[in-house]
């Protein structure tokens, strides 16, 4: 899966989790940009991304991600290994 495909699929996951069909994300998007993205919703988001991409984040990754770009980078990295 290339970066663009990953971003598209990730956008779908964000839309499902935040129940917003028009939500757009970019590499710079952070939790501050999405009103309902608090620490509790972060858990749902991480779980949903893990299910959608059939992968698991390490604990360090979960607590260390600063923005959507970093999340995409991790997903690209894992996709290469597969």
């Amino acid at each position: 899966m290339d970066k663009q495909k990953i971003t598209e699929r990730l956008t779908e996951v964000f839309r499902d989790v935040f129940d917003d069909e028009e939500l757009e994300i970019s590499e710079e998007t952070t939790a501050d940009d999405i009103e309902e993205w608090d620490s509790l919703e972060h858990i749902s988001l991480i779980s949903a991304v893990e299910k959608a991409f059939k992968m698991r984040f390490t604990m360090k990754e979960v607590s260390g991600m600063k923005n959507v770009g970093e999340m995409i980078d991790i997903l690209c990295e894992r996709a290469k290994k597969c």
Partner: protein
Amino acid sequence: MLSELCYPFDGDEIMTKKKKLLRLLKENESGGVPLRIAVLGGSTTSDIVKVLELFLRNRGIVPTFYESEYAQYQNDALFGNPELDAFKPEVAFIHTCSRNIEEKPIVGEDEKSVSDKLEREYARYERMWTALSEKFGCVIIQNNFELPSERLLGSREVGCAYGRIDFITRLNCKLYDYAQNHANFYIHDINYLSAAYGLEKWHELRHWHLYKYAMSVSAIPEFSYSLSNIICSVMGKNKKVLALDLDNTLWGGVIGDDGQAGIEIGHETHEGQSYLALQKFIKAHKELGVLLTVCSKNDPENALEGLNHPDGILKPSDFALIKANWNEKSLNLEETASELNLLPESFVFVDDNPVECDIVKAQLPEVTVINFENPEECIRDIDKCGLFEVTNLSADDAKRGEMYAANAQRAAAEKKFATYEEFLASLEMSAVIGEFDPVHIPRITQLTNKSNQFNCTTKRYTQAEMESVAQSSNYIRLCGRLTDKFGDNGIVSVVIGEKRGAELHIDLWLMSCRVLKRGMEYAMINRLVEEAKKADIKTVYGYYYPTKKNAMVKELFGDFGFTKISEAENGNTVWALDVNAYTPKTVYIDIKENDNG
């Protein structure tokens, strides 16, 4: 009802889309029962509560929640806080797990010292239950303790004084003893749930370390569903009927083609054995008060031939009603519901044929449908769906099947009389109408929470609330039990009126639809007026609050001789009766004061 939230569900899908599901439920919400639930957690509860709300709303309960600050369960339960006190929970759920055990045994510790630890640990919980129960009189739901993920001593963790699994098992037994001896207290069996889910998957340590969830985030839907089943059962939301297909459901093969000798049922073949196991499992539901009916496309004589198979366990007499014909099943289910005076929403329909299932789903969305491929799957789905979850089993429950069978005999008898009055007189009815008896409070509460049709206010009570009404001198209470020559119908009517000076306000007036058109409601109003006179009441006020289901009692108070004094835009009506101007209604029931008199 959203099918995404019906068993068997996709837990991951629910976790991902819970916001959307909540929005959809709110959009379609109509007339749910409100319920205040305090969740007192020993670990994170956020998503547990969110998913619990989805399952409850899907079954007609609209919850509001109080959630403890992280791990403050003990402080909240013992000492309360202004927010919790103002919230006045009707249900308190103590969400603790094995991680919350404060004093665990140490390797090599002696039996006496471990037993002391056990007593101290248990006492902590009992103090919380006592405090909650005294302060709020609420229903309490307590998780038991699940097995840990690691076993330092291997199998020696059991059968050894300092074994940790031994300790957890003993602690659980103490919880169960308390549950046996206390009403309004229920165990949420996460020990079973985690085992069924798979202990290794359940203990997702990452999710404990990252988020302080007691179990894997993926297990939350299973957890919340199981919890919702207890709450739904306490609130009288259980299903009442299992409507069963015959061919390839209760036996293998098609009775019309294969004949009695050709169908698979009994010990002779493997397939026959699996259908036998299913029949045994279904028959056991009768003891829980679940009604069994047949809904099959068959000639009636063939259906009976199949059910009379010598090796079968389910016989024609086990069914409250048998519909075997060639009509659409949705139509048959509707007719069955109306003949039993029940609503389609009380039904669980079981069929192997996906097409039949889809038609029923489309035509009668309120019916729960279980579609399956083989008998083992069918047993699992009925078992795990939790729609018949037992919280209180009343003596009437086990007899319910007989009661409905007696109803069918009455219907047949009715046809033989020239007038309806003659028929009523022939039933040799007698009723006991009187004050709430403490032993009957569970049944009174159960009936109150599940009566929808013959119910003027649809007011719901927890058992604790009903107990407090029973003990207060501010109320006139009546419960009525009806017997006739075909059998005992059990407690069928409940009335609660609140006294305010010389006025009596009827908070609750309901009757089981099993005894419609028998004059029982007239016997109840006659008695209520007598009691009102004794209490120096001058005026009785009746209230009718319309719902989707209770149109049949819209004019009930008018029929009793009340005068309508107001009607609101939403259809709510208020009625008044001058006690001294009341003319008693004619009844064909012999009325007794109590069971002896």
